[in-house]
C-alpha cells in the first residue's frame, strides 16, 4: 500500500502548474470573453507542445500511453486557474473513448494521432449533459443516440449557442442526424462506453472542482489579510477564519476520494462507479461551500464583476452540475449501498466495490 504520487507525477504536475499559472490569469480569461470563440488557438498549440493532449493517447498513435491517475493532478490545476480550454474533457473523456474503439474503426486511430499532434479537437456529447461544451472549436464531435455513439464532422451538425452564467463556458445544443455511416459503436458496447465516459467526465469535473475550491480559499485568504475594518485585518475575525477553515476541511476530504477514483478508473474501470460518484459529490460540496464562504468574506466587493472571485464561483456552480449532478451521483451511492449484497466494511475500501 502506497497512497502517494510518484516523483515523476509530482514533477510533471509542478511544471504544468507553473505554465498554467503564468498563462491563464484572470486578465487573460477576461480578454477571452470578448473574443468570438472565447478560445485561443495559440494557447491550445502550447498545450499540445507540452504534450498534454497526448498524455492519454496510446503509444501506437503517437501518444504517451498514460492513464487517469497520471492526469488527475493536472486536471486539478486546470480547475485552479479556471482554464477555459477543453483540455480536461479532451484528455479524460474524448481520448479514452476513441482509444477503446481503435481496433474497431480506423477513423479512431487517425483521430487520436491528430489529437496528440494538435491537428484537431474533439468535443463529446453525453446524455448526462443536455448541452455540449466547446462544440464550436471542435473539428469532430462524438455524440450519443440511444445506446449508440456517433462521430460527426462539425459541418455535419448545426450548433445553437446557449449562454452560461460563466462567461468562459461555451455551450451548445447540437442538431444532427444519426446514420450507419456515422455510427462508431452501439448495443451493449455503446452502453458500456457511455457509462465509462460519464465516469471520466465526472472525474474531470471533480478534479477541477477541488482546484477551484482551493483557488477561492486562497483568493479569500489574501483578501482578508489586506482588507481592514474596525482598525484590523478582517481576517483576524474568528467568524471569517472559521469560514475558511470549514472550506479547508471539505477540500481535504474531497481529495483522497478523488485520487482513489482516478486510481480505480485506471485499474478497474468497470468497478469505478462508486468511487467516482463519491469524488464528484465531495468535490461539489467543497467547491460550493468555498464559493459561498468566499463571497461572504469578500463582502460587497465579491458581488462585483470587477472582482476576480466570480470567475471561479461561476465555474464551480456550473461544473457541480455537469457530468452528472449531485442528485445523480448520490443516487448511485444510495443504490449501491442499500443493496444487501454490497461489499461494505473497512477491509473493502480498496477492494472491488460493487
Amino acid at each position, binding site marked *: 500500500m502506497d497512497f502517494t504520487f510518484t516523483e515523476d507525477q509530482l514533477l510533471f504536475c509542478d511544471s504544468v502548474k507553473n505554465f498554467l499559472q503564468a498563462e491563464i490569469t484572470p486578465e487573460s480569461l477576461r480578454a477571452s470573453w470578448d473574443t468570438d470563440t472565447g478560445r485561443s488557438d495559440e494557447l491550445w498549440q502550447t498545450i499540445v507542445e507540452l504534450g498534454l493532449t497526448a498524455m492519454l493517447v496510446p503509444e501506437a498513435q503517437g501518444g504517451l500511453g498514460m492513464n487517469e491517475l497520471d492526469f488527475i493532478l493536472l486536471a486539478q490545476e486546470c480547475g485552479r486557474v479556471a482554464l477555459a480550454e477543453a483540455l480536461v474533457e479532451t484528455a479524460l473523456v474524448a481520448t479514452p473513448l476513441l482509444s477503446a474503439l481503435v481496433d474497431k474503426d480506423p477513423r479512431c486511430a487517425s483521430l487520436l494521432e491528430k489529437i496528440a499532434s494538435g491537428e484537431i479537437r474533439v468535443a463529446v456529447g453525453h446524455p448526462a449533459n*443536455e*448541452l455540449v461544451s466547446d462544440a464550436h472549436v471542435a473539428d469532430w464531435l462524438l455524440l450519443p443516440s440511444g445506446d449508440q455513439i456517433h462521430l460527426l464532422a462539425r459541418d455535419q451538425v448545426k450548433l445553437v449557442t*446557449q449562454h452560461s452564467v460563466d462567461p468562459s463556458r461555451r455551450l451548445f445544443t447540437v442538431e444532427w442526424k444519426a446514420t450507419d455511416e456515422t455510427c462508431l459503436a452501439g448495443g451493449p458496447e455503446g452502453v458500456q462506453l457511455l457509462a465509462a465516459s460519464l465516469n471520466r467526465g465526472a472525474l474531470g469535473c471533480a478534479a477541477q472542482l477541488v482546484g477551484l475550491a482551493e483557488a477561492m480559499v486562497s483568493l479569500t485568504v489574501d483578501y482578508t489579510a489586506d482588507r481592514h475594518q474596525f482598525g484590523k485585518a478582517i481576517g483576524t475575525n474568528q467568524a471569517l477564519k472559521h469560514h475558511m477553515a470549514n472550506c479547508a476541511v471539505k477540500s481535504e476530504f474531497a481529495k483522497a476520494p478523488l485520487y482513489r477514483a482516478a486510481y480505480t478508473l485506471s485499474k478497474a474501470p468497470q468497478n469505478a462507479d462508486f468511487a467516482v460518484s463519491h469524488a464528484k459529490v465531495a468535490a461539489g460540496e467543497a467547491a460550493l461551500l468555498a464559493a459561498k464562504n468566499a463571497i*461572504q468574506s469578500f463582502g*460587497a466587493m465579491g458581488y462585483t464583476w470587477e472582482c476576480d472571485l466570480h470567475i471561479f464561483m461561476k465555474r464551480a456552480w456550473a461544473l457541480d452540475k455537469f457530468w452528472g449532478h449531485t442528485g*445523480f451521483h*448520490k443516487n448511485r451511492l444510495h443504490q449501491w449501498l442499500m443493496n444487501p449484497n454490497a461489499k461494505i466494511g473497512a477491509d473493502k475500501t480498496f477492494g472491488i466495490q460493487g
Partner: protein
Amino acid sequence: MDLNYTPEQIAFRQEVRQWLADNVPAEPLQSFDTEEGFEQHRQWEKTLAKGNWGMVTWPQEYGGRACNLIEWLIFEEEYYRAKAPLRVNQNGIFLLGPTLMEYGTPEQKERFITQMARGEEMWAQGWSEPGAGSDMAAIRSKAIRDGDEYVINGQKVWSTRAVFADWVFCIFRTDPDSERHHGLSFIFVPLDAPGVTVRPIPQLDGLPGFAEIFFDDVRVPVSNRLGDEGQGWHIAMATAGFERGLMLRSPARFQETAKRLVELYRAHQNDILDLTIEDAVVKSYMDAEAYALSTYQTASRLIKGGKIGAEASLNKIFWSELDQRMHETAMSILASRAELLPHSSAAGNVGAWLEGFLFSQSGPIYAGTNEIQRNIIAERLLGMPRK
C-alpha cells in the same frame, strides 16, 4: 390572541387583489438595473401612486391609506401573489420613508414624502464608503457647514440603483474633529447637483446595479439635513432596523419563492434523484411560514406601541439565509440547466431562478453582514462578553 383576519381586512385583501389584477403589466418589465427597465419601473411606481397604493401605511395627506402594519402585510402578500414588478424605489419607500415619518420636519415630510409617494423621485442610499463597510462609524466623507449650506467632499460606494436614481440619502461627518459614531449627520443630496459624479459598478450579472458616488465641493442647503446635526448615527440605526427587519423584506416575497419552489419540485419530481431535495423544499416552505408568522407577531406588537430593537438582526439572518437555501435548492432541481442565462433557448422558463440565485448571494452581505448580525445577537440580545 385571535388569528383571524377581520371582515375589513378580508375586504381590503379583495380590493388590493382586484386593483392589481386590473393594473399589473401583463409582460414582465426589464431589469431595473438597465436604463430602459428603470424607466419602466418608474412608470409603474406612478401607476401605483395614482391608485394611492404607493405606500399604504402612509397618511392620506401624503398619498397613502393610513393602513396599519397588518394591512401592509396583506398588501405585500397580494403584491407578490400578483407577480407585480419589484419596487425600484425600495430605498425610498421602505427605508427613508419610515425614517422621515419619525424624524422629518413637517416641511421635509411635505416636500420629500409627497414626491416619493407620487413616484416622482427615486432614492439611493449612500452610507458605505471604501473604508467604511461593516465598520460604518469609519465614515470619512465630510459635509462642512458654510452659512445655510453644507459643502460635501468624499466618496460613497455600493449605492444601489444610484446610477439612475434622483436623490441619495447619506451619512456624512459634519464635525471634522469628531470620531467614530459622533459628529455624523443624515443629509439628502440630489444626484444631479454640480460636483456629483456617479460611476456605475457592474454586479455578478454584469448589470450596474450599484455605483460609486464622488462628491467634489457639492453644495446642499442645511434644510436637507434630517434630524439634528450630530444625530446621524442614531437615525441611521433606526433606518437599519427597517432594513433588517420588517420593511425591506416582507415575508410575502419569500413565501412566494417557497411556493414557486414547491411547484418547481412537483414539476420535476420524477427526475429528482437526491433524497435530500424534497426535504429542503419542505423545510423552505416551513421557514418561509415561520418568517411570516414571526412578522405578524412583531407587527401586532408594534401596532400596540412596541418597538423593534436588536431582534431585527434575527430577522436579517433568517430571511437572507432562507433565500439563499431556497435558490440553492432550485439550482439542484434544475441540475444541468441551472447555469443557463434566461435568454438561452434551452433554459425554457426557468432562467429567473438563476437571477434569483445570484441575487440571493448578496442577502447575507447587504443591510449589515450576517457575521455582524451574529455579533449583535450574541452581545446585545444574549449578553455574551464583548472582549
